[in-house]
């Protein structure tokens, strides 16, 4: 382990006050010995930088997929006091409400025999992906205002999915507090043509098979069976979210001196939660988050249609298990010093993992906790887990969000060719479809930590519990 960090448990580490000047609380992160070798000093410094922010409560936290980002580390979680604390786009990222949803189908792997290539091609044709992709939807600026307030419900009311889908989204697919006036005309211009598009980078739609059930009772509650074909959608708020983040980052950075906030990294620019700048960012961020839920709802609907036509299914037979956000700031009630209190929880590359009986989770899952979806990379498994009481006590109800990168994009492109990755994966029975081989190379499985190990750590710590393992059959990428 890096110097200056103390071990406080089997898989738990503390970054003491003083690691960087001005820390108000210690940092805590969770990592196994085998993952420790991948930890960058830059990520720990970023974790410590977050601890300098006004009103931070208890700890600056990071999940086992911690890595070096900008502002907060990726995998970073921090809660702020509602009166003394701040809100920061650096704790959310540019892709506001980047998230994942998992959908089951009544098909088994054998139903796909001889049809997998066609399925992947049809999905690729139905869902706009990649740089410059534009939506087939034609929405007006007025529609966009409604999308930003109503989120996934806007899509459902226009025939993209059903009412039942909404209950199975975090925040029912729309956070309250949206302020369309806090969204610039530039953000709107980017948002209008991109609703229903997957985007590029690490975003994907993947067809998967449930390979192993580790908790049969909970899997049954979530509607999963061994051998079942599922699909997973990973994307966010597209250009609209990027612009909202950019605009407000700029406003908050300029307001730092007004609030006498001194930070070691200007990307942590923030303002008191109940200040004009803080409220402005929150209202704009909620608009982008709601846009992202509508986006994933539209994409899911298009994918359901492809499956329905190819296999003679009814869309109702393809059940949304859950939709989780992994880049967002939310006002939540947690226990602080033995008392319930509202705090502003930032999760940047971290997933909410509320335990059983949490009032925010769907009634049908109240007995087992919230479904937590952890996407793997193209060649490594994805996992379905459930939230726990331990997560509520230790991490503001949060867990990891993915495998976490270990190789930069430039390094991986030097080490592997996209064509080779595509052929290697095809040899393993995983079909990959993208606009370019370079996009495949960047996201090659070797660029990521093993998802198995990241998930094992959160499971052993009790931050969430493994329910099922899913393996990729085919993937479309931006």
């Amino acid at each position, binding site marked *: 382990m890096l110097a200056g960090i103390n071990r406080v448990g089997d898989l738990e580490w503390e970054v003491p006050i003083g690691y960087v000047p001005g820390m108000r609380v210690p940092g805590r992160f969770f990592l196994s010995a085998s993952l420790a070798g991948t930890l960058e000093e830059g990520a720990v410094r970023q974790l410590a930088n977050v601890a300098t922010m006004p009103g931070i409560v208890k700890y600056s936290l990071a999940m086992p997929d911690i890595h070096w*980002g*900008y502002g907060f580390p990726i995998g970073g979680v921090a809660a702020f006091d509602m009166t003394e604390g701040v809100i920061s786009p650096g704790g959310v990222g540019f892709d506001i409400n980047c998230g994942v949803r998992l959908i089951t189908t009544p098909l088994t792997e054998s139903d796909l025999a001889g049809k997998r290539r066609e399925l992947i091609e049809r999905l690729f044709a139905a869902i706009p992906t990649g740089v410059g992709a534009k939506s087939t939807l034609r929405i007006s600026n007025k529609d966009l205002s409604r999308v930003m307030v109503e989120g996934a419900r806007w899509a459902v009311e226009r025939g993209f999915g059903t009412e039942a889908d909404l209950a199975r989204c975090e925040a029912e697919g729309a956070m309250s507090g949206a302020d369309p006036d806090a969204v610039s005309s530039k953000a709107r211009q980017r948002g209008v043509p991109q609703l229903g598009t997957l985007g590029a980078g690490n975003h994907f739609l993947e067809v998967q098979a449930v390979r192993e059930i580790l908790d049969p009772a909970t899997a049954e509650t979530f509607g999963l069976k061994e051998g079942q074909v599922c699909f997973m959608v990973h994307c966010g708020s597209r*250009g609209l979210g*990027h612009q909202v983040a950019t605009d407000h980052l*700029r406003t908050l950075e300029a307001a730092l001196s007004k609030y006498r906030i001194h930070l070691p990294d200007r990307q942590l620019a923030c303002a008191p939660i109940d200040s004009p700048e803080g409220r402005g960012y929150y209202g704009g961020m909620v608009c982008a988050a709601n846009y992202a839920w509508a986006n994933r709802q539209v994409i899911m609907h298009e994918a359901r249609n492809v499956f329905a036509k190819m296999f003679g299914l009814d869309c109702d037979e393809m059940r949304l298990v859950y939709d989780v956000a992994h880049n967002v700031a939310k006002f939540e009630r947690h226990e602080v010093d033995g008392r319930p209190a509202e705090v502003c929880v930032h999760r940047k590359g971290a997933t909410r993992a509320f335990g059983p009986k949490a009032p925010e989770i769907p009634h049908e899952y109240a007995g087992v906790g919230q479904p937590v979806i952890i996407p793997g990379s193209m060649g490594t498994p994805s996992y379905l887990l459930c939230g726990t009481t331990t997560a509520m006590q230790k991490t503001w109800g949060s867990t990891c969000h993915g495998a976490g990168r270990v190789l930069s*994009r430039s390094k991986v492109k030097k080490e592997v060719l996209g064509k080779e990755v595509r052929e290697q994966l095809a040899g393993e029975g995983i079909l990959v479809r993208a606009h370019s081989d*370079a996009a495949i190379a960047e996201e090659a499985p070797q660029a990521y930590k093993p998802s198995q190990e990241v998930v094992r750590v959160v499971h052993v710590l009790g931050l969430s519990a493994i329910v099922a393992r899913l393996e990729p059959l085919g993937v479309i990428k931006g």
Partner: protein
Amino acid sequence: MSFEELEHTADLRLRVRGATLDEIFAEAGRAIFQVMYGHCKDRGVERRIEVEAESLDSLLFDYLSELLFITDVENVVFCTFDVKIQGTRLTAVLRGEPLDPARHSGGTLIKGVSYSGLEIRRDEEGYVVEIILDV
């Protein structure tokens, strides 16, 4: 004028150099388009922009963010950047071509410009800056 990609696990970190401020801003523009789209040719698309900020670092942030906005909404790719800076005000003439997914899909989409470590410094060769971009 030059740029190089530095090591960064999750995002993209560029070091950009220029003998003058005009040059370093032009090169930073060229760098992000190179990363996003690879090859680009001047095929007659031209745009003029003006940006003003309270400091040079914020001017760079605003200018690069403006470029990301223009390429996203107008589907254009730029290859030449004629930048003039006076104080903390910038005017630029950008030239390039319409986005063609068949030729421009080999790159990395940039989601935003980060303020982390964004500081234009002077050294013996002129100006240098490191920029972390969310990809």
